[in-house]
């Protein structure tokens, strides 16, 4: 192999990816006994690493994944099912018996297995509620009531109860040790969701606890364990307890959420 070709393979060599390419293997073999080629390889690898790191640092919009799932779930399934002529005739016959739907009416999910998954992902209550909650946190003026300030969890509970709003049945542990409370309510698909804002006692991290009635989320089971999602500068946990759904959003990375939820 000519030096020119060896260099061409070495300059495109990425450790851990290209070892299986026969021409790269040959070039690496040649470089092993040649200090000039080794130096060339080293320089090229450094350059590759710099470019790779630079491009990997392009940051991802925080809600992109949720936006994707929401948008995919909103898409109507446009798959067109074309029946042969005999099927149309058969359909006419069956139609008179009122059985068309059961025979020839595949749902989008039947015709496209991914559609069922998309729908399932789209109605993922976590994604749905979290997306709503984050939108609200960006525009707090959407609150249906004024913010009520309180100095204890009991005061918060009493306020929510007196306003017929979802309240934490039990004292939710993360809120127990907190300070600087306020709460309000939001309209979510015609139902009320309570929001309790507080600062974690030790770290002062801002936390937002959304409380909703479980019956509004048919895909969630009672006593669902804590499910956590993390983002660049926030993290969220969703769980259910009794007849309530809880969503905690913390303006801090996952580690801080773990401290709050401990």
């Amino acid at each position: 192999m000519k030096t020119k070709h060896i260099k061409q393979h070495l300059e495109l060599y990425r450790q851990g990816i290209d070892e299986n390419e026969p021409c790269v293997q040959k070039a690496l073999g040649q470089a092993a006994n040649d200090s000039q080629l080794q130096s060339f390889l080293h320089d090229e690898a450094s350059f590759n690493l710099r470019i790779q790191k630079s491009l990997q640092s392009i940051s991802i919009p925080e809600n992109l994944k949720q936006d994707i799932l929401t948008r995919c779930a909103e898409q109507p399934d446009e798959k067109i099912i074309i029946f042969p002529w005999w099927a149309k005739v058969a359909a006419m016959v069956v139609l008179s018996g009122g059985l068309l739907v059961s025979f020839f009416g595949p749902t989008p999910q039947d015709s496209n297995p991914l559609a069922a998954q998309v729908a399932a992902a789209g109605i993922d209550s976590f994604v749905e509620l979290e997306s709503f909650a984050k939108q609200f946190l960006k525009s707090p003026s959407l609150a249906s009531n004024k913010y009520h300030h309180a100095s204890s969890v009991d005061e918060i509970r009493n306020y929510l109860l007196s306003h017929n709003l979802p309240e934490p049945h039990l004292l939710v542990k993360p809120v127990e040790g907190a300070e600087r409370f306020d709460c309000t309510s939001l309209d979510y698909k015609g139902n009320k969701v309570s929001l309790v804002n507080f600062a974690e006692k030790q770290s002062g991290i801002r936390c937002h606890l959304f409380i909703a009635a479980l019956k509004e989320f048919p895909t969630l089971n009672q006593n669902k364990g804590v499910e956590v999602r993390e983002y660049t500068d926030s993290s969220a946990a969703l769980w259910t307890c009794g007849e309530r759904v809880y969503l905690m959003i913390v303006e801090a990375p996952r580690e801080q959420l773990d401290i709050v939820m401990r």
Partner: protein
Amino acid sequence: MNGESLPPFEQVVSDYYEGLYRFAYSLARNPDEASDLTQDVFVIFAKKGSSLRDPSKLKSWLFTSLYREFLRKRKRAQKFTPVDKEILENHSSGNSGIGTQTDAKIVLDALEQLEEIFRVPLSLFYLEDFSYQEIASTLDVPIGTVMSRLSRGKQQLKSILTPTTAHTPQT
């Protein structure tokens, strides 16, 4: 068909949306357009992905779809919208970029200066650790062409990024 099945939809989104977004950003140089392209790809996947028989081709399929969608949108934009040169210049200078790190911006600006036949394979090469074969099938060109474009593209990228030796006036 190799007997394996595609991962669940949400898993596919989790595994690939970041890489697809970065690739889209390297093509479009605009965060909104990159987000739209990324979403478009998953919409396409939701509709047509079940026809994909070989799960090992999934990554390549997604990136190919994104690239085609980018070309399709750009073609349409060129057809219907008179492109304002000033807007293009601002666009390519990265003014619209949110969260793009300084070095990434320099590299993206340098990539922008390359011809598309070099820029696209290089983006795949650096961003997603695509093998030469995967780049070839994503761009639908022979592997030899990919190697040659990568090599030439990298040399051009280097010459843009490496400051030329300062010219010292002779006394």
